[in-house]
């Protein structure tokens, strides 16, 4: 088909977390601009399998930009050259014929490589487990309309709640800081009335776990915000710092 492209891929291949990885070069031929980036990798993988070579392993699932499972550092940028999109929603029309594309996994000590481009992001789960919730049991809760919440507050909480936990913020940060991710959840609950009773213990518990996982500190560069596929704002980090310092200075509570 006219308009199709031929590309050179330099892909990080690594058998497992115990072996050293290296870049391997592949040719991707006759790539339609309508393909998604992951479909382009599917095409390359199908050819590899036909040749009896192990396909390139990468994480992906919904391919709709919402599950947060896909990752990939593409030409030095998390989720590739397009702003505000995940790798699965990146299309090949963002590239041109003859281009060389370098594909790496997320690079962070807290995200060890499992194989090739797939990394272990369970540190994110453990941070959420430390306090990313409101302590309510199923049943016995008030009517949903018993607590009016101003639309502006609800909308702002929603904006923070849209984080997909892909890890691009960590991958983009020179310090591999997870503060954008952590602050999004802390902000959601700090804004909503339902989150008030535990807001300070939550901030402390989640920050403590974040530090324990080995993520770096924030130095306000803003790369995380620039690369976030769903537009989580830096102001979340400011809010998290306020929650955390207030907790430390005035409201130290027993952790649950």
């Amino acid at each position, binding site marked *: 088909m006219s308009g199709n492209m031929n590309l050179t891929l330099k892909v990080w291949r690594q058998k497992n977390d115990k072996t050293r990885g290296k870049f391997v070069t592949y040719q991707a031929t006759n790539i339609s601009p309508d393909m998604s980036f992951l479909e382009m990798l599917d095409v390359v993988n199908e050819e590899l399998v036909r040749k009896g070579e*192990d396909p390139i392993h990468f994480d992906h699932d*919904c391919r709709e930009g919402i599950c947060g499972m896909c990752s990939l550092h593409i030409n030095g940028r998390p989720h590739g050259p397009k702003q505000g999109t995940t790798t699965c929603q990146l299309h090949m029309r963002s590239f041109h014929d003859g281009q060389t594309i370098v594909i790496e996994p997320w690079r962070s000590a807290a995200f060890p490589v499992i194989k090739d481009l797939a990394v272990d992001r369970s540190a994110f789960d453990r941070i959420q487990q430390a306090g990313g919730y409101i302590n309510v049991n199923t049943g016995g*809760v008030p009517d949903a309309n018993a607590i009016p919440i101003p639309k502006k507050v609800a909308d702002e909480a929603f904006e923070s709640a849209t984080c997909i936990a892909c890890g691009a913020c960590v991958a983009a940060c020179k310090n591999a800081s997870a503060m954008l991710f952590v602050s999004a959840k802390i902000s959601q609950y700090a804004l909503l009335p339902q989150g008030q009773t535990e807001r300070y213990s939550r901030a402390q518990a989640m920050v403590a776990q974040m530090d324990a996982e080995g993520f770096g500190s924030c130095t306000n560069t803003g790369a995380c915000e620039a690369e976030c596929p769903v537009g989580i704002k830096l102001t979340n980090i400011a809010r998290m710092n306020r929650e955390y310092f207030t907790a430390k200075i005035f409201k130290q509570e027993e952790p649950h």
Partner: protein
Amino acid sequence: MLDSKVPAGPLAEKWSKHKFNLKLVNPANKRKYTIIVVGTGLAGSSAAASLAELGYNVKAFCYQDSPRRAHSIAAQGGINAAKNYQNDGDSVFRLFYDTIKGGDYRAREANVYRLAEVSVNIIDQCVAQGVPFAREYGGLLDNRSFGGAQVSRTFYARGQTGQQLLLGAYSALNRQINKGTVKMYNRHEMLDLVTIDGHARGIITRNMVTGAIEAHEGHAVLLCTGGYGNVFYLSTNAMGCNVTAAWRAHKRGAFFANPCYTQIHPTCIPVTGDHQSKLTLMSESLRNDGRVWVPKTVELAQKLRKGEIKISDLKEEDRDYYLERKYPSFGNLVPRDVASRNAKEVVDEGRGVGASGIAVYLDFEDAIKRLGEDTVRAKYGNLFDMYYQITDENPYKQPMRIYPAVHYTMGGLWVDYNLMTTVPGLYALGECNFSDHGANRLGASALMQGLADGYFVIPYTIGDYLAGLGFDPVDRNHPEFEKTRKTVEDNVQRLLSLKGSKTVDDIHKKLGHIMWEYCGMARNEAGLIKAKGQIQELRREFWSDVTVLGENEEMNQSLEKAGRVADFLELGELMVDDALNRRESCGGHFREESQTEEGEAKRDDENFKYVAAWEYRGESQPEVLHKEPLEFENVKLTQRSYK
């Protein structure tokens, strides 16, 4: 033989009475029981969290790298609940009635009524968890009308309601993981069910990072593993969605009900080429403001496809707003099955649009004129962006192209009123079971059912089974565990020994073509018989000529895929058998032989008013059909009409 365990008494009192009659497990004894939950979507996460809160030990499993990524997360439109906050005439009975009718009278009355009844609790629960639903300026919850409902009962969080609800359930799950009451296993895939003396006693999983094949024991097993839409290869399901857990349970004795009931969603982005790996849904909330049309004549459609004329050259009288024309009272908001079939009809006539001609328009020109672009953006902005991203066409300037795609499967494991399958101790929740949507699911009802099952049904019904068990721990040294584990290991080795010339995707794509062609939006006897033969042939091809690379003891996506496709190849044939057996049209199952004069689905209540539950009888044995008759005491069966 099939006992639905639906309690006697008036519809509105069944669930309350049943809850009272169920046996309870003493709070101090709950910790003596271990419950296995497979899958962490809305049903799985909510069940795992709620059961752990009650005091049970829970082990939860998901194939993704985090429980938060289960495919419930991709649901867009909303969740129904009979809150009647809008004072527009909604009630539990109306939600029940709409759901039964929408399902074309192929669901159990009692289950559906319970679903409508607990729907109100779900919203309360989610708000208490901090789920940021859309709100009015006064601070109260906003609702919209959705998917053909005549009342506004749908709660939503912009176009990503599933995400917010799942993150709510995930937060409840995290709380229990932190307390140590749930042990979470990420990147673990269930590959078999362990039964001892006919009871579910555990599962066999493969650790998808190390390849370790392990046995896990429990007093009960909950399958919350979603639907099987990926049997069609192309669907709106996530790439990893599969039938394996449910299918292996089926082969261990769980009946599979109504497998031919699949939902083809009318508003998806059309296929662009062979490279396509999945399809993307555009929320049907778009049909609230978008108008569906195609050119009035085949000639105009041809000219448009060839680029000889532009969309703007087509005047109002050249356009056929076929849904508005045929269904004046529901218009663009007819239920999904009706909208999908009509799209197929106009495309088959040759009036389709886009380069392939396999699409219809969903046009927002009028909505933008009426409401202004800003209002349209506020309502649908993220969907428009997604469409633009994928197609490189701006839907604010030109109509969207849409076409139906496989989206949801109403069929699933047969369960009784307690959500227990035909294997004692094995339960199925959410899309994985067959119970609540009949032959067609209404919009915004999947999220409702997943959470109803997990938060408000299973916590009550499971106690009844466990209380009868005694307190003995499951004997993990029982030979069945090792025997089943060995079976799984042998199967994995068998797959890895395949070194043919085809890739797993080659076979999967072929299967998808067969299913879509003969067991998709329209089915007929000759086609289904043909499909059955082709699937059998394809299965032979798989086991003789496919190639599976790598080893077990590593992350191996070739192996994962191969195992799933092997099971789809068996399920596909059962779907065809079920579609062949059901010589009537109902909901998403359209048999061309059974239609009204106007071409609408025509039920045959005299002969097919039953649930078809299939029993596995061994390799290459025909499955045995068991019928659960459906009784309707509270609604009158009518020919569905949306005119």
